[in-house]
């Protein structure tokens, strides 16, 4: 929607007018769109010493692609584009990866704006809630004026990098001076990109701020009515997208000068204001290195995607949760042709009837009833029968999933015996693949006497189920169907060890070979070999 607006206004070259993201026309005031020269290159950013910068291709694309956040491109390529400033900023922020963080520098002409004991811990990324709490003083005091300097990309490392690398010339001179000389200042080295986006949304929606976009030209002519809350947003020059440090340095110096000019001008007018200097996205993204020494093996190749994580299915009888059931993929195949995917119905939309489930201390049945899961089947019930028994030799209770029954249309019963799904009664059971296929570690075996079972194939992946001893509505420790040493690992180890042992023995024998030097006498006569016997 926003990109469409970008697109149309870009084409039409209409003069700018501020629009909110959520509704149109708040102020029809003319705004001078900032027009800082662009210092970006079109080449892709190369790697540098392991630090990977973000791809710049996005910025150079035209507005024609509706899926791209064209706001950034907008400011560069559509000179007379409408200043959808906050909306575009919000959209820009949306493109920033949620896990990344940017620094935020705040200073104010008022004393003790922020609690000096605010402890921002090393490595802590300030979230939206924490940011709101920190910035609460700005929003609640009288005659509040806020200046927001928004850089397109900035990281906390840039401050040290650029100020140290280039000798005497400190590109962050003004910023540093203000931070030191202001009555109150705060530096947040890592604020979540989502939090900055949230902040902008809050600023936009709170309504009583008078939003003004500022260019360097008009700073002195700016009418700041101190009786109303004012929000001045200055979008700073974008940094070079490639790694030419000199041009980046110049851009930063320019921005610093702009910040200095605006701030000093406001100071001269005697207004009480606060400044936030932050960025939309980080300029340096360090690769996440998880050097975690874990006892449990992890599949390196299969990265877990948090694409859709949903809570497990909770069956409550009475007041307590009785059964917990989770699977990332739960599907059946009828007659080897019709695939019925029940994952959404069971977990996402919870369109399943579990009222026929029964719970007791020794027997639990999880009953899942679906109506019209697919054309041709009017009702489908799947039952998981679990038992909890005491085994004398191991002297503990084990819970086992004994059988899975599928009832179609209330009359045809298909029964599967389950072997190998068991866990101590206090634990939950987890297995990566459960089903009727021969290859799965935990298998559902068709009962030979049951004809209906031949028609069904079951596939459950990432199954986690617990039918007894549920505490706090959560899964207990999961006893997994695959252990630390898989059969393949064992076999490889045994064979390798034996062969290596043989090799070592052989090498040892060969190293023992020596020539006889007992009768060697270099000074004595040489051995004479008679020609005839």
């Amino acid at each position, binding site marked *: 929607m926003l990109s469409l607006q970008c697109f149309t206004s870009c084409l039409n070259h209409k003069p700018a007018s501020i629009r909110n993201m959520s509704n149109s026309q708040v102020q029809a005031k003319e705004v001078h769109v900032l027009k800082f020269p662009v210092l970006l290159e079109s080449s892709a950013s190369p790697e540098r010493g392991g630090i990977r910068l973000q791809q710049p291709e996005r910025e150079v694309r035209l507005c024609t692609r509706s899926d791209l956040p064209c706001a950034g491109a907008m400011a560069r390529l559509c000179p007379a584009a409408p200043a959808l400033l906050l909306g575009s900023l919000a959209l820009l922020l949306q493109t920033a990866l949620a896990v990344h963080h940017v620094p935020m520098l705040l200073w104010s002409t008022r004393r003790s704006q922020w609690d000096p004991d605010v402890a921002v811990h090393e490595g802590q990324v300030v979230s939206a809630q924490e940011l709101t709490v920190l910035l609460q003083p700005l929003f609640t005091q009288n005659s509040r004026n806020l200046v927001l300097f928004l850089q397109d990309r900035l990281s906390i490392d840039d401050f040290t990098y650029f100020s140290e690398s280039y000798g005497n010339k400190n590109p962050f001179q003004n910023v540093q001076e203000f931070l030191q000389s202001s009555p109150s200042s705060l530096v947040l080295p890592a604020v979540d990109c989502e939090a900055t986006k949230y902040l902008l949304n809050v600023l936009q929606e709170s309504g009583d701020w008078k939003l003004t976009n500022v260019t360097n030209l008009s700073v002195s002519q700016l009418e700041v009515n101190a009786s109303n809350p004012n929000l001045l947003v200055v979008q700073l020059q974008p940094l070079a997208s490639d790694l030419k440090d000199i041009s980046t340095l110049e851009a930063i110096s320019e921005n610093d000068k702009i910040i200095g000019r605006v701030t000093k001008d406001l100071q001269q007018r005697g207004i009480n204001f606060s400044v936030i200097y932050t960025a939309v996205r980080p300029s340096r993204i360090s690769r996440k290195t998880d050097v975690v020494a874990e006892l449990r093996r992890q599949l390196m190749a299969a990265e877990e995607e948090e694409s859709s994580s949903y809570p497990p299915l909770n069956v409550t009888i009475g007041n307590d949760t009785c059964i917990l059931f989770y699977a990332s993929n739960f599907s059946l195949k009828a007659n080897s042709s019709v695939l019925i995917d029940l994952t959404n119905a069971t977990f996402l939309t919870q369109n399943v009837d579990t009222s026929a489930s029964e719970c007791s201390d020794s027997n639990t049945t999880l009953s899942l009833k679906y109506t019209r899961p697919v054309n041709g089947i009017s009702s489908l019930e799947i039952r998981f029968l679990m038992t909890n*028994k005491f085994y004398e*030799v*191991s002297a503990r209770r084990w819970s086992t999933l004994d059988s899975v029954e599928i009832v179609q249309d209330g009359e045809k019963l298909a029964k599967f015996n389950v072997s190998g799904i068991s866990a101590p009664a206090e634990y939950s059971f987890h297995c990566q693949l459960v089903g009727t296929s021969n290859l799965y570690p935990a298998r559902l075996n068709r009962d030979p006497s049951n004809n209906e079972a031949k028609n069904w194939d079951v596939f459950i992946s990432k199954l986690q189920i617990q039918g007894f001893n549920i505490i706090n509505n959560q899964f207990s420790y999961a006893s997994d169907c695959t252990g630390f040493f898989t059969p393949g690992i064992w*076999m490889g180890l045994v*064979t390798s060890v*034996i062969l290596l042992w*043989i090799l070592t023995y052989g090498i040892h024998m060969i190293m023992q070979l020596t020539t006889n030097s007992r009768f060697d006498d270099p000074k004595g006569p040489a051995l004479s070999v008679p020609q005839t016997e």
Partner: protein
Amino acid sequence: MDAAPVFLRGSLRGPGAAIAALPSMSPSPGFCFTVRAWEEDLDPCRFLTETSPYMWSNLGIGLAISLSVVGAAWGIYITGSSIIGGGVKAPRIKTKNLVSIIFCEAVAIYGIIMAIVISNMAEPFTGVTPEEIGARNYHAGFSMFGAGLTVGLCNLFCGVCVGIVGSGAALADAQNASLFVKILIVEIFGSAIGLFGVIVAILQTSKVKMG
């Protein structure tokens, strides 16, 4: 019931009997007595039941031939170097002492015969879980491994023994031609121990039925 090793439970009941016939009497559901925390993955029962019988049988076949050949080679090296060394001064010993080499070589022949015999018993079987594989296949796999190890190690030491004795025979023969025949008797005794290994290995694999 409790005294029986867990992984042989099936063989006590006979093949085909369901493990779950008396569930309260079994140590745990599932085949092995394990909790599946990571420390207990070093469970010997799981190790022995989850490693495939194919691995064990093929290791046995490999060890049968390879260890026998090591023994033969070692023996031939020892004897051969002595014959060659002694033959420099007494060339008449060369032909007679080849008998020692032949005794060493016999050890390698035992090894290859046993390897072929054992490998003929390896048949494909179906089954993934311990219950499906069944006791007979486990027995076959372990027996073939044991037989191969038996014949291999026996032949290894037999070969070394024959080699050292043969070396002594060659050097004694070089000194005094009448000594050779007497030392040959010692060599024959040494060679018999390789044969013992073959006999025992055949006995071990006599009841093997895989697949």
